[in-house]
Structure formats: C-alpha cells, structure tokens
C-alpha cells in the first residue's frame, strides 16, 4: 500500500503514548462498555438493546484493513434495507489520541451514514479491547509517525448484549450478510 506523502506529513503532527494491551484470561468475554460516540455523546452498549450489533475496531489512519472492513460492513448494512433498523454498526477507535469524535464522524460517514464511530480515553478503549480480546500494538515509524497493528475481527452482539459470534477478518460481505440475516431471523 502506498501512503501518499502528504498523509505522512499529517501523521507527524500527532504524537501519542506507547500503547500495548494485555489481559488476563479471566477477563469477562464481551459484555457492556461505555465510550463516547462521534457526536461527542456518552455511549453505552445497553442503548442498543434489541438490536443486532456489528462491532469492530480500528483507527482512522489505518491504511488498509480498517477501510476494507468498514467497506464490508457498510455493504452489509446497505443490503439489509428493510431490516436496517434492527442492526447497528459500531466502529471503535484504537487510536483515541488522534481519533476525536469529530474525526470519527467524518470518517465513518464516508462509508455509511448509519455507522457509529466510538472513541474515548486510552484506558476506556483499552478496557473494551480487553473485553473483546482485541490485540493492538503501536508501531513507531522512522519518520516519527506511527501505525497500529491490531486484530480485525468482527464481533456480533445480540439484542441482549451477549457476544454471539466472531467473524475472522477476510470473510467476504456475502458471508457476513448470511450470518446477520440468520441471526435476525432467529431473534424474530
């Protein structure tokens, strides 16, 4: 992937703490969390009770994986049409230092108006990542910028807030669509 030179310049503006995330395997898997949505309002997962949630993680400077994943999720959401109101896509930033609510809003809207971007403090984000077993690591670059390596699974949470399936990265939208339709049909 070729990153345009101008983009690199902007990366230089940001500096951030070194972030590494670890967890104990005793940590509850999935579950409730609190963050800030892209309109700068407090967000809690329970707000989405009754909806099927497509949760995934990334960051807006992400050069490859996140746009692909976002595009895939957007394609799924677009396909759902009639059942669109029963599904909510959530994109959680793993780079809250750079991804302010405003940045998140602009970013997710390129893909789908219905998507919600979430961010928060480093600690808040790290907590959610731990719960969902998301592995991420900041990589300093020689030019002073950084990128974040992160696992890119898609997490499906049912209407009761329970993590019900994990889709590994790399599955085509068709598969995700089949799964979402199946889960929706199951919950009536």
């Amino acid at each position: 992937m070729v990153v345009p030179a101008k983009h690199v310049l902007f990366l230089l503006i940001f500096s951030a703490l070194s972030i590494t995330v670890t967890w104990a395997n005793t940590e509850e898997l999935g579950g409730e969390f609190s963050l800030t949505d892209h309109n700068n309002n407090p967000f809690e997962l329970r707000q989405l009770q009754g909806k099927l949630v497509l949760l995934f993680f990334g960051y807006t400077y992400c050069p490859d994986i996140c746009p692909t994943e976002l595009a895939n999720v957007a394609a799924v959401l677009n396909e759902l049409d009639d059942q669109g109101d029963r599904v909510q896509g959530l994109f959680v930033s793993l780079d809250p230092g750079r991804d302010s609510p405003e940045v998140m809003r602009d970013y997710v809207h390129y893909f789908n108006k219905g998507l919600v971007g979430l961010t928060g403090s480093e600690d808040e984000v790290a907590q959610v990542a731990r719960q969902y077993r998301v592995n991420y690591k900041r990589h300093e670059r020689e030019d002073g910028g950084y990128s974040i390596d992160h696992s890119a699974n898609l997490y499906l949470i049912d209407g009761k807030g329970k993590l019900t399936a994990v889709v590994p990265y790399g599955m085509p939208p068709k598969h995700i669509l089949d799964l979402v339709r199946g889960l929706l049909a199951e919950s009536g």
Partner: protein
Amino acid sequence: MHNVLLRSIWLAAVLISSASADLLSDSAPGYGELGYTLPAIGSYSLPALGEAGNGTVLNGDGKQQSLHDLFNDRYALLAFIYSTCSDVNGCPLSSHVFYKIKSAMKRDAELADRLKLISLSFDPEVDTPEVMKLYANNFRYAGSAGEWQFITTASHQALQPILQSYNQVIQREVDSSGKASVGYSHVLRVFLIDPQKRIRNIYSVDFLHHDLIINDVKTLLMQAQNQGRLLKAALSLPESSKLSKPGDDKQGYEQESYVTRSLDLELRQGQAADLISFIEKPPLGLPPVPVPGNNPISREKIELGRKLFYDRRLSLNDTFSCAMCHVPEQGFTSNELAMAVGIEGRSVRRNSPTIYNSAYAALLFHDGREQTLEQQVWGPLLARNEMANPSIGYVLEKIRKIDDYEGSFEAAFDGRGVSMETLGMAIASYERALVSGSSPFDHWYYGDDKQALPASAQRGFELFVGKAGCVACHHIGDKHALFSDNALHNTGIGYRESMGIVPETQPVTVAPGVTLQIDRSVIEQVGEPAPTDVGLYEVTQNPNDRWKYKTPSLRNVALTAPYMHNGSFSTLREVVEFYDNGGVANELLDPLIRPLGLNESEKQDLVTFMQSLTGGNVDTLVADAFAAPVGDVGKGDPSWVHGTDVEVR
C-alpha cells in the same frame, strides 16, 4: 479539518481499488484469483511428507480430545492460528481460504464429506474454548455442508508437543518491559493430512489458495480411489470364500494402506463334509470324476486318506505332513512361498501345485512325470527335500506301528493292510474328492444365470476365448471346463531362469508401502543360486522338451497365488502382463505365445474373469479340512530316533 478532507480523497482511492480487488493490493494470492493454471487433477503425486503429529486438544465444547480422533479418518486441513492475529497475510488468510473451501463444499458433496477444516489456536490463554466457539458460530448459517472446527488446547504445555511435531515455531512478542505478551510472530503453514494421518502437503502464504488445495484433495481422493479399486479387485473373489486365506493374509502388503489381518486359530471352526458326494455328483461345470477301476471310491478310503494327508508322522522326523505345502486355506497350495520348503527348511525348486481338481489331471507334477494320484503320492514321501523318508518300507513299517491306524487300512481295503499300493490309494481318494466347481463363471456359462458374472468378468471371458487366446491351452468345453489341455508348453519362464536372465535390481517390500530396489549382487550374497530346472526334458531327455511345463487348471486360480511353476508371479495381473508381452523369447517358445496388445482395462477384465473361477464349494472343502485330525507323535508311537518308543513331551 484540513487533514480530514485530504484524507478523504486518499480514502476514496482506497475504496475504488478495494472494490475491484476485493482486498489489498499487496495481499497474498489466496485472497484473489489464482495467477496460474493448475495441473490436471490426478496428474501429479503428493508423496507423504511425514507423520501428522498428535496431541490433546479442546474441542468447541471444551472437551478433551485427541487431535487424531478429531481428524475422524477424513482428509484434514489444519491451520495454526490465534484469534487476535493482526497480520492480514497470516491467520486471516487461512480463514479466508478455508471459507472459500467451505463455500465450495456446498456445491461439492464429495469434498464436504471427505475433507475437514480445522483451525487450531496456538494461544491457549486468550483462545479459550468459549472464544473458539464464537468463531464456530460464524458458520451457523453457512449451510450444513462441510465441517470447520475451531479448537484450542488447555495450556501451553498441552500445545507444545503439537507445535513441535508440526515444526511450528511460535514466538511470543512482548512489550518493552519484556513481560507482557502483545502477540505472536509465526510463519503461516497450513497442513493437508490424509486419513492415514500423513502430511501430504504444506502450504505457505504464497501457495495457500483454495483452488490449489481443492485440486490437491481431489488428486489424493482420485488416487486413493484407484488404489482402493485395485485392492478391491484383487480381493473381490477371495471374498467369495470366507475360509480360504492364509492365517496371516499378506495380500496388499506392498500398499501403504495394508493392515494386519492375522486370523485367530482358536476361532477356526471345522465342519466335516460328506466328500464322496462331490465325486458322485460333481459341482456345476465339471465332468464326471475319473476313478481308476482298481481303486473304486469309498467313504472309508477318503476318511483314511484325509487322516494320512494331515499326518506329520508320515515324514522322516514326524514334522511334515502333505498339508504343510498343500495348505487347505491357501488354495491347497502355499500362498506364502514361491517355491516350496520341505523338511528342515530344505528348498524345493518348484511351486506347490493345488490339489483342487487334481482328480482330472492326466499328468502330475509340473513336468508331467507321473500319471496317477496313487503313484504320485510317493514322490513327496520319498523326496529328500520334502518328507525325506529313506524308503518305502520305512514309511509302511512306521504306519504299521502307529496304534491309531490299526485296522483302518484293512477296513478300507477289504482286509488288505498298509502297503505301497493301499497307502497311495487312500491318499489319492481324499485328493480325488477335492473337486471344486460351481463358480460364478459356471453359473453364468453352464447354468444360464445371466446375473452370475459381473460385466467386467464377461468382457474378460470374451478376451479369454478371443483376442487373448488363453483358451487354446486353458480349455473350456461345451458342458464343462477344466481350463487345462493336460499338455506341457514352453512359455519362456523356465528358459529365463536357466539362462539367469534377471534384472539388475529386484523390488523387495520391507514394510507396508515400503518397497526397496535391492541390487542383484546383494540378493545373491544371501540367496541360494537358482536351481537347475529344464522341465519336461528331465523326463524325456528330448532337447526339444526343454522348459516345458504343464498347463495348470485355472479353477480357483484366485486362491492359488503365487503363479507359474516357480511361483515367480505374485498376482494374476503379473501373469496377464507376462502373456501380454508374449512370454520370454527362446528358440523353443510355444508358437501359441505371442504379444497380445491388451490395454489396461482389458488386462483388468481378464483378471476379473479369472477371479470368477473360484468354486462355490471351497469353504465346504476347507472347513472339512479344518475338521480333520492332525497326526502328531504321541505315546506309544515309534520315534524316528533309533526306532525307540516316543517319550511323551
């Protein structure tokens, strides 16, 4: 914000490219179309790369299971992954490729049935069975075709031996403090494992592509099926007899799929039969049994002959009966020896002929030197490398002193005691009763049962009497068939042996599926030199009779391997190949023998035809043999040592 605007332009570019290429431009080939044409299925081989290791894993329900049990005798595609993997060309690639294969399984029932996908985590701390189950949930609505399991292990200790056996080097990446794990670095490898738990291919990132893997699996399936078919064809007619097989059946030993089929002698059940009925009313396809005028058949003679046939005391040192070379459950020959081995391991230079249907043989021994069974009996009794009795009188005196023969000769022969003549007559009577016919061929040809013979055997019959010309020597009559012309022919086998025409190396199977080419000089160091054998010439002293041997009957031929007078062919297929090549050229080669130009399926058809010649009463005859007493030295018997009484051991 300024930067956001610029980034959006850049993003649009990304989206356009990702829409067309599906994923990333520098992603592994597995994400896209295969950039090359695959070789045709079955056109290449995938030799085993070693044993697939085993270990204890946790399945989706968190239950302990051995990895091998999980394979469940199917082909398995095994990927080592961890769920938090962030390298697109690592674990996610394996998931993507597996997904493509699973999708193909929806359309391909064979693939779904025979192949299993397994993703095994090497991060037991994070990837608990609960986590792996969430992955499995992924495919809840992906159709029932094809199984993909996500498994993990209980601990690093449980995982380590598995990683080691698959040579998977996994390094934990740690943070700057050196304590916390932040991921793993590993080299992606996906293993294709066959039902025998052997690794058949290992895919690295550049070769992990669903089209290639499916091609490989199809190739293995096709080759296994062909092998299975050959094996089945080789075994199909012995199945028509439950009893006629060696106690340790080595058939198919040259194939990797061979499994031990040793039989438990304790389970061997004898069942005496009224053998005289086969002489009085021969089975379908056989002519009336010729019975010499001076030795009319009787139950008493058959019974006495049967007792003598299985009596080890008839040999010099009380060890060797007739049945030890003419083994009932091995087609009344010996399936396990090319050339017979006599008393004390002495080599006999020819293959044991079967006793089945010897009643019809006008000439006996491979060189046809004897004319009646009554006389023939004395050959092996006196041969120093067979039963090794020093004289006729020695045998007769010994039998006279054995209590359990007292009066039995007199009863069978109108008061005549044991003599050179009555002993021959008794054994000949038993042998004469071993007539075997009523085979699938007989039912089809003489019994007018159109269903009795499979199509392949019918085609084989047409070749047998037509293009291949076998019937010229292996006669088939209008009302019955003996499959022999009772004459002797030079096929070149004997010539080849006499002239020492041997390949430089010889294949030696040392373990199932492991056949080594051994240099001739090595074999000669440990083997005996080939015996001198010039066939009929030894009897007639006519140089034109060199290397002529008797045409054997082909009845029960599927049970009487190995073949030819020296047992030099292990399978009927080899025999067909030999004749297809026109035998071995020599100045006395029988003019009937010439290259036949058979194709592969014609050869198989001929083999199938010959396999259809197994008699329907074989098991009756074998079970009767099992019921016979085995004569062994007992108290009061004369000992072969110094003529004293035997001490009971």
